[in-house]
């Protein structure tokens, strides 16, 4: 049970970090995945626990609903600059948290517990990771991926080349919101509890630490760093637990100072690809 929980939690953080990473590809600091995770988690919790919907319906309902919320808000957020969007979406995190805290039918300040459990949630989580990875990889190699890179490098140049940044931003925010929703639904069914404090500013910082330290230019960085960051405190000896945050902070600072682009860069990925290809060729 414990190991299963660790695996699922790591999957949640990977998906949430990817959801934050995706808009960064297009030069957008969009914090929506965090509140979308909360929306999806609460939606899934409410419809399965109170309305008695089947778990699968509640799960996908939560994901789709959070995607719609992100899509709706995207029309207003899309014209914003990177920093405006960062500030507005941080404000939205607080707005949604306060809303959850004040809605009695969602449990108010004490949250909701007793959410029905999902069988084989580990399999569901790994399937979600696999699907997200394939989609991100396909996006990265596609025309859209190149357009995103162009926007990230120079917005004006990208516009001159015909990239519709408004539509691209809407698509990115919707996709990131849906991915955040996926993470939130898995989280809710894993813990069996939703609480207004869970998907807040702390969670946002944690996700961006994963993205920036892991490497914000490929999906592999967050994927490798999420388990490391989560498991360090888990296996840190309890006798020196009080120094855990110092150690944690030192690792993050050291990584960012020595590797400003993160642990896994495009070059790292290319090297690994070449290495694996040569190993594969030698084997044959």
């Amino acid at each position: 049970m414990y190991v299963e929980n660790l695996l699922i939690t790591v999957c949640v953080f990977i998906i949430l970090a990817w959801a934050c990473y995706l808009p960064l590809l297009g030069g957008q600091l969009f914090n929506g995945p965090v509140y979308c995770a909360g929306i999806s988690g609460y939606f899934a919790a409410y419809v399965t626990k109170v309305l008695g919907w089947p778990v699968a319906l509640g799960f996908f309902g939560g994901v789709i609903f959070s995607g719609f919320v992100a899509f709706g808000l995207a029309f207003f957020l899309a014209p914003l600059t990177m920093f405006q969007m960062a500030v507005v979406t941080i404000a939205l995190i607080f707005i949604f948290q306060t809303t959850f805290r004040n809605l009695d039918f969602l449990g108010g300040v004490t949250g909701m517990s007793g959410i029905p459990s999902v069988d084989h949630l580990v399999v569901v989580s790994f399937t979600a990771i696999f699907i997200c990875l394939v989609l991100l990889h396909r996006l990265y190699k596609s025309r859209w991926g190149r357009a995103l890179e162009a926007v990230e490098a120079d917005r004006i140049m990208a516009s001159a080349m015909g990239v519709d940044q408004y539509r691209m931003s809407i698509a990115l925010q919707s996709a990131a919101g849906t991915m955040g929703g996926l993470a939130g639904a898995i989280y809710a069914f894993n813990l069996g509890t939703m609480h207004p404090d869970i998907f807040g500013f702390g969670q946002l910082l944690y996700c961006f630490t994963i993205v920036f330290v892991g490497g914000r230019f490929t999906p592999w960085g967050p994927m490798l760093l999420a388990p490391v960051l989560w498991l360090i405190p888990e296996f840190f000896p309890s006798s020196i637990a009080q120094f855990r945050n110092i150690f944690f902070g030192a690792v993050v600072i050291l990584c960012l100072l020595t590797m400003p682009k993160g642990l896994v860069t495009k070059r790292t990925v290319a090297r690994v690809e070449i290495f694996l290809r040569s190993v594969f060729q030698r084997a044959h």
Partner: protein
Amino acid sequence: MKKGRILVLLSAALMVLTPIADRKAASSQVVVDQWEVPFINTWTGVGAGYGVLCDFFQKAAMEEINASGGIAGKPLVMQDLDTAMDATRAASCMKKAVEKGLVIIGPMTSLDTQVSAPIAAKEGVMCLAAAAGFETIKDSRPWAVVLMIPNQKRTEFTMNAWVERNPGIKTVVMLGLPKIAQWAKLGELQKEALEKRGVKVLDNIDVEAGAVDVSSVVIRALKGKPDGIVTRLMPADTVRVISALLKRGFKNKGAIFTHSSADSPELYTMAGESGNILDGTYIGVWGTTNETPAYKNLLTKFQGLKGQEKADKTMWGDLFYVATYMVKEAIEKTGATGDPAKLKEERIRIRDYINSMKNFDSRIKGPISALPDGSFTVPDYLGRIENNRAVVVMSSSEYFKE
């Protein structure tokens, strides 16, 4: 006649020897070399300051128990699990604890309990969330208990006892820390209790923790000219706010009530440095001076902690001291063996034992009993600050005539 005498003697001998034999059998049945009990607490993160103190009290009980022969002859060791006051990690800690734990001490905070107690309930392990809010275990009964009376009753007691001593209070302004969900709930309960008595709450103002300048909130608080002030803040913020209130003309010190969350050595140290400014105000009090040798011993140890040298009483973290002794008694009285094959059945016996405790000798808080809703009759108090010390005015036991 002789046969009769022999029979009587035999039965008397049996009556005397059976408990001894039973005790020996019970101790020989224990299959573990030590009792490893999970302790879910917060050693790092936002709540670490409180967590370290809770750990101190828990470990003090553990050391005493081990020095006096352990539990059923075996030493008690703790499996320390740190939630870092993070809901996700709290769930992770609980999932680790329920794997082998016979009974669990903790979690410490309400948020951690809210998230993780349902996991304990689902897996059928008793958890003693000693200091958490009562609301947090409602869905996890009977597998979770809290060692204090429910917030609703406590709030009703403190508000009523305070207003009774200040009959002139007709209007009140509340100042609270907004980020702690349980305190927001507490604010609602305080408002309810006051309104039941016909006291109008003019405003409920959010005060951020560690705010450098509190003058704006104080001006807002005094705008409606309230008769009374209720605060739910951290100790340092409480001193800052009350100091600003007095400077801006709020004269009736008795009409200021501070929630028990601030009742700590930090509060009195800061108030002392500001010229005993809290003298004459009322405060909710958890710990109280107690004349039992166990309490005196514990207080002396507590004063040995860095920063607690001036403490004249323990703090609410001492509930973990009580919880540890409860675990000892539950294991011994239910004859638990620690045998993994009997884990499920022994967990149920421990649950039933703890839920039906009557007049349990808490050593430091007098005899306490379990209530049907999962709370315990641990008293709390209304205090009045005199010479920078909280002097007990009334206890909840006295108020509710428990």
